[in-house]
């Protein structure tokens, strides 16, 4: 019993972390049709910025907000100055995102050095909670709450606002959206900022669990890819459901079959691609 309770909580908290990572990736992928391979690096950049901001202002919420804004601004500049010039050349764009990911990684190495840097857990959430006779970190439960709140906020943004309607239109049919007068160009930048900002904030919120360390970028990137491909490109609901599916499958998978960690991570994705090439919630066009 205890095993199931604790691993369920672990699954939820991993799912929450994955959603914070993957939501922005999915948005960018859906609208710009680019697998943004800088996403892991932006997540790592967020974690490092968070650690530095927390040295001056001891509030994780503030750090996530400020760090997210900085990373969003960086993402906007990247989209405007570099990706924009390669419009239409999607393979080139993907390659550039990979190159920039390496550049960010080396800049982080220069600025923060090669050693892992802890991101402190907020004082109020430092004590573990006792659940079913087992201690569970309260911060991880808070992460689930933050992920769900972020999910709801994004859902409302996409489904209930004018900006969201434009984004949806762009995801469905870029040409037609442009033809009916939607400023697709500005929309691209906005979404890229939003996606990058989410990655940065996600890195800070994940920081107390994972810390900031060189290599965090490429530890996280495959997870974002798996979630988005499983859930369906450009679908927020897909990213949300995909995150929690991967959270559960991965956690229970390695708890029950510890030798098969990577198989378990990729297996659901392969199965879904085989039967639903556009992912669980991807739309067919």
């Amino acid at each position, binding site marked *: 019993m205890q095993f199931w309770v604790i691993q369920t909580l672990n699954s939820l908290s*991993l799912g929450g972390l994955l959603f914070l990572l993957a939501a922005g990736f999915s948005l960018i992928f859906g609208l710009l049709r680019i697998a943004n391979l800088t996403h892991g690096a932006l997540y790592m950049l967020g974690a490092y910025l968070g650690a530095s901001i927390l040295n001056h202002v001891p509030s994780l919420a503030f750090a996530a907000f400020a760090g997210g804004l900085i990373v969003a601004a960086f993402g906007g500049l990247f989209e405007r100055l570099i990706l924009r010039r390669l419009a239409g050349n999607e393979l080139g764009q993907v390659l550039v995102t990979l190159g920039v990911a390496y550049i960010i990684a080396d800049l982080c190495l220069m600025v923060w050095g*090669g050693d892992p840097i*802890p991101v402190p857990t907020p004082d109020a959430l430092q004590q573990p909670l006792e659940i079913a006779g087992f*201690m*569970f970190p309260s911060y991880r439960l808070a992460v689930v709450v933050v992920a769900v709140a972020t999910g709801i906020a994004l859902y409302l943004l996409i489904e209930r606002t004018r900006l969201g309607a434009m984004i949806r239109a762009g995801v469905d049919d870029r040409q037609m959206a442009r033809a009916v007068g939607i400023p697709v160009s500005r929309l691209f930048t906005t979404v890229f900022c939003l996606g990058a900002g989410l990655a940065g904030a996600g890195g800070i919120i994940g920081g107390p669990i994972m*810390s900031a360390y060189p*290599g965090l970028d490429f530890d996280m990137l495959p997870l974002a890819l798996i979630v988005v491909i499983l859930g369906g490109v450009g679908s927020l609901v897909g990213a949300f459901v995909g995150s929690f599916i991967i959270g559960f499958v*991965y956690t229970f998978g*390695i708890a029950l079959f510890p030798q098969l960690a990577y198989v378990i991570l990729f297996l659901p994705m392969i199965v879904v691609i085989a039967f639903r090439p556009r992912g669980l919630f991807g739309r067919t066009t």
Partner: protein
Amino acid sequence: MRINRRRFLQSASAAAGAAALGFPAIVRAQGEPIRLGLMTVKTGPLASGGLDMERALVMYLRERNNMLAGRKVELFVGDSAGNPAQAKSKIQELVEKDHIHVMIGPLAAGEALATDDYIREQKLPTLSVAAAEDMTQRKPNPWFVRGTSTSSQCSQPLADYCYKTLKYRRMAVIADDIPYGHEMCAGFQRVFEDLGGKIVQKTFPPLTVPDYGTYLAQLCTNIDGIFLGFAGSNGFRYVRQFNEYGLHGKVNIVGGMTALDEAVLRNMKYEAIGIITTCWYSATLDNPLNKKFAAAFRAEAKYDPGFYAAATYVEAAVLETALNAIRGKVEDKVALMKALRAIRADTVRGPVSFDRFGNVVGNVYIRKVERDEGRLVNAVVYTYPNVSQFWTYNPEAFLKNPVYSRDWPPAKNLGC
């Protein structure tokens, strides 16, 4: 830096002084300088250790005015980014373009294994810090010596310490799912179980797993202690998450030689205090060479030297001793390798010598994380003198067994 008259005069007189000191040596030198290659990692996830390697080697040479055995030394540095394929092409560059005589490095076991054939083919004298067991056991490379330790050379004495001194009887092991992790745990398990202890849980999470939550929830808590065989930042994250799950004080932690290196200790707080680890070095070692080195390194880098800095400094001392023994004739590779295996060198880790496989015999230290002057240090609590890679086993019998791995020795006592 702006150059004013005073600074110019300072550096000019320093240069003149150095020239005056170095002059007799240059006369003695056999013409060409010794071309020394350092194969390290300056970018990517392993860069922290790799940069320390370069810093320590540059320090070593600078302290000797860039002279070893009466010859000037030219240093060539290659960066593999920790990638075995890149390590190979960079070593080719060091050999074929820079014409190095001898190499220190590479850093990681995967890089050493990927370049093993090339080192044999080129007959390149190599002093490595990579721990892969079989490079000095069942498949010894005649051009390879290691002044640090094999993967299990430090974990075997720790198992002895856990059983005899700490009186642990039931333990778990967890390590990165790479040969280094497997070999460390296997050596630990073999010695611990041969003494009569039981390893009741063995776990190998992927090297790049960002979160140990699932593994922590699985940990047997009715044990005396858990052995951590992590590298890089993984030990740091494991210990932090261990505390997050409220396990601090419930299960004792002991660690391998890279689990809580000085490099990660400086970013840790109370959570690490009291943890016992094993290594062939500690920045707090009380010998004259190390006191000087640790103080100088701290003055320059603002932190304590750890595994990689000390490893390179040790390898440099071993190289210098061997070069002195052959009077600087680095071109005679066979004589150099013979000297490397025959010498006894005094280093910052204490005295070392080499077995016939090219692996070091030297002290292994059991250390405990303590607070000292506001920082965490690995204080030495016990010394195992002159430890061989075969521990106390007979080398011939040892080598008849399969190499340490995930599944050897087999675990017979699993189950919480």
